[in-house]
């Protein structure tokens, strides 16, 4: 039997050479007259090992990585087609502790399948949730999502079931399902991975949402920075239509659902749901005032479910296994699991899906292996550019929406970016304001003007012109105005990284004597 070799097509894996490795494996196999079947799978999310190649031996997938094209002849010589020993061998992939200890619910199939094969998708549990949903009344589908405790994974953490119930009850006219795939937060890549590595899971989630609220049309708003995800989703939608998963009669049920793919154009603020809706309508992405809620007057003025990729992709598992099974994971009011993304200065960056309640320390050290540079981790930003910076004294904080909110931080979309002790936190605070100034939609004054004033103030502080008790008081006052007066999270949360940097690292602002930071 021809040996199957899995080499990711994930754009991050390709960015470090997976394409060249695939070509080298094909060429070397041909040279040796050994037929191999190369499957281009999604990434397992063990990015420090990418390009990670898996060879299927007696039903087990043996991992080798990171593989460079020049390693390929030696791997054949080592007998890797029979799982042979080599310095790059890590044993069965699913036994690697980093992967084995995770609770992969939403990412259950990630890296195991050919992303565009619907047969593969079905063989790994796909469409089971949709089949169940087709046999349920809409209210029961919403009920299952309510019972699961699922909250919006895009960052706001709003209960998904309540949102869906609102749209379900919003009359019987035209309604829409909109997927927010404008994953702009630095340190986050779970949406991208899922769209590239398991696109039918997102499609299935959107179909279930459509059945739940009575919508027959969906839109995926995808950022332009993700060209590979665009191609995969486009192909997946066509395949799904061809095989009757999407179209006039979903799985032969007589129920209709069609999907449109819309490309963003490089505006971070379009990840805000009302700005995103404006953008789909072909307008400037100006944030809308709420109310009205998008659930009642959303896309083209109609009731609309707007959910993030991971939120929607969590739904098929919930429908297949039941809301209670999902609800059994997690802590407090943060139920289920979150695919955390470890990024920045870490030895083992990657995708870690674990139940809520894990601590930052576990993620940074047990999974992440500490800093890549070998220096102490001084600051961690959780939840993207609008998330707070946390010092080592906060690393035991459990990852839980409420626990984070209590200390002025946010779990957000689960991105975790680590910085070592070479970081200048006043520079990071300035960057937060600068980013807001660049990306503000300009509709409200606190965000549009406040961010520019913030940059000016911080420039003064960075240049050593600080007058303690003056500039920092002004900066804090400005942050308060932005927090309370902005229309959306862009201006409303930019103060989080700024204030947390001021609170925890005053020495970087010239507000306290420099001290040698000892970190865990």
């Amino acid at each position, binding site marked *: 039997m021809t040996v199957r070799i899995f080499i990711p097509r994930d*754009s*991050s894996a*390709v*960015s*470090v050479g997976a394409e060249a490795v695939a070509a080298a494996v094909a060429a070397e196999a041909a040279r040796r007259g050994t037929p191999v079947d190369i499957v281009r799978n999604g990434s397992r*999310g063990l990015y420090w090992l*990418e390009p990670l190649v898996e060879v299927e031996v007696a039903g087990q997938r043996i991992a080798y990585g990171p593989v460079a094209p020049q390693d390929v002849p030696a791997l054949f010589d080592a007998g890797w087609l029979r799982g042979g020993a080599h310095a790059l061998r890590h044993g069965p992939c699913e036994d690697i502790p980093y992967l084995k200890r995770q609770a992969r619910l939403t990412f259950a199939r990630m890296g195991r399948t050919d992303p565009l094969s619907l047969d593969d998708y079905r063989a790994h549990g796909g469409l089971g949730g949709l089949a169940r949903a087709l046999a349920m009344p809409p209210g029961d589908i919403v009920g299952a999502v309510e019972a699961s405790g699922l909250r919006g994974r895009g960052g706001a953490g709003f209960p998904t079931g309540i949102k869906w119930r609102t749209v379900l009850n919003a009359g019987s006219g035209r309604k829409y399902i909109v997927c927010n795939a404008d*994953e*702009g*937060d*630095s*340190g*986050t*890549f779970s949406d*991208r991975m899922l769209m590239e590595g398991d696109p039918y899971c997102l499609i299935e989630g959107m179909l279930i949402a459509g059945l739940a609220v009575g919508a027959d049309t969906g839109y995926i708003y995808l950022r*332009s*920075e*993700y060209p*590979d995800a*665009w191609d995969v*989703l*486009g*192909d997946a*939608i*066509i395949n799904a239509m061809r095989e009757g998963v999407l179209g006039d009669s979903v799985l032969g049920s007589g129920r209709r659902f069609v999907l*449109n*793919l*819309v*490309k963003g*154009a*490089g*505006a971070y603020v379009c990840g805000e749901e009302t700005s995103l809706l404006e*953008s*789909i*309508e*072909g*307008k*400037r*992405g100006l944030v809308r005032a709420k109310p009205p809620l998008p659930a009642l007057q959303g896309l083209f003025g109609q009731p609309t479910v707007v959910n993030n990729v991971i939120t929607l992709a969590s739904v098929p598992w919930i429908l297949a296994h039941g809301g209670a099974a999902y609800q059994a994971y997690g802590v407090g009011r943060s139920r289920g699991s979150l695919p955390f*993304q*470890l*990024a*920045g*200065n870490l030895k083992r*960056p*990657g*995708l870690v899906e674990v139940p809520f309640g894990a601590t930052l320390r576990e993620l940074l050290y047990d999974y992440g292996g500490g800093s*890549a540079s070998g220096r102490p981790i001084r600051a961690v*930003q959780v939840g993207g*550019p609008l998330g707070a910076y946390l010092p080592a004294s906060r690393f035991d904080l459990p990852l839980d929406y409420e626990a984070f909110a209590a200390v002025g931080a946010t779990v957000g979309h689960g*991105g975790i*970016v680590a*910085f*070592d002790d070479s*970081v200048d936190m006043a520079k*990071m605070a300035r*960057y937060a304001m600068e*980013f807001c100034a660049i*990306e503000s*939609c300009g509709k409200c004054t606190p965000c549009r003007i406040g961010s520019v004033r913030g940059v000016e103030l911080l420039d003064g502080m960075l240049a050593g012109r600080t007058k303690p008790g003056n500039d920092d008081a002004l900066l804090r006052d400005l942050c308060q105005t932005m927090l309370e007066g902005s229309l959306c999270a862009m201006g409303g949360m930019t103060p989080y990284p700024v204030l947390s940097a001021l609170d925890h690292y005053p020495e970087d602002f010239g507000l306290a004597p420099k001290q040698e930071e000892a970190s865990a």
Partner: protein
Amino acid sequence: MSQESAPRSDQAGLLPALHRLQDQLGYIPDHAIADLARTYNVSRAEVEGVIGFYHDFRRTPPGRRRLQMCRAESCQAMGADALAAHASGKLGVGFGATTADGAITLEAAYCLGNCACSPALMLDGRLYGRIDAERLDELLAEGGAA
């Protein structure tokens, strides 16, 4: 190829049309504005406003190659600032500008979703990760840009 390609005649068709135009020409020329306004039944001011709002759209021809360097937090934590200074110095242009010979346009990107392989960049639409100055020089040399 996707559902997006089904053209719409209302304003929702404007963004896809701008993308198609820029994919073909590399920028949105002035003479296209009136046509776009007519086709999508909006004012010329609205078309200008939409183009101006989104970072992706250009009003002038770009360089032959496009280098987008991520300047966001994760890449900063892995040395993106020094890498950006290196690129800017080597090419002799600032961010948002095109080299005098029209060879390459240098742009800032705010996250390419490659944060687990920081620092990252995109060159002519292809993503690269774990970039250092040496690797950047190689990539630029491969395409004859520097």
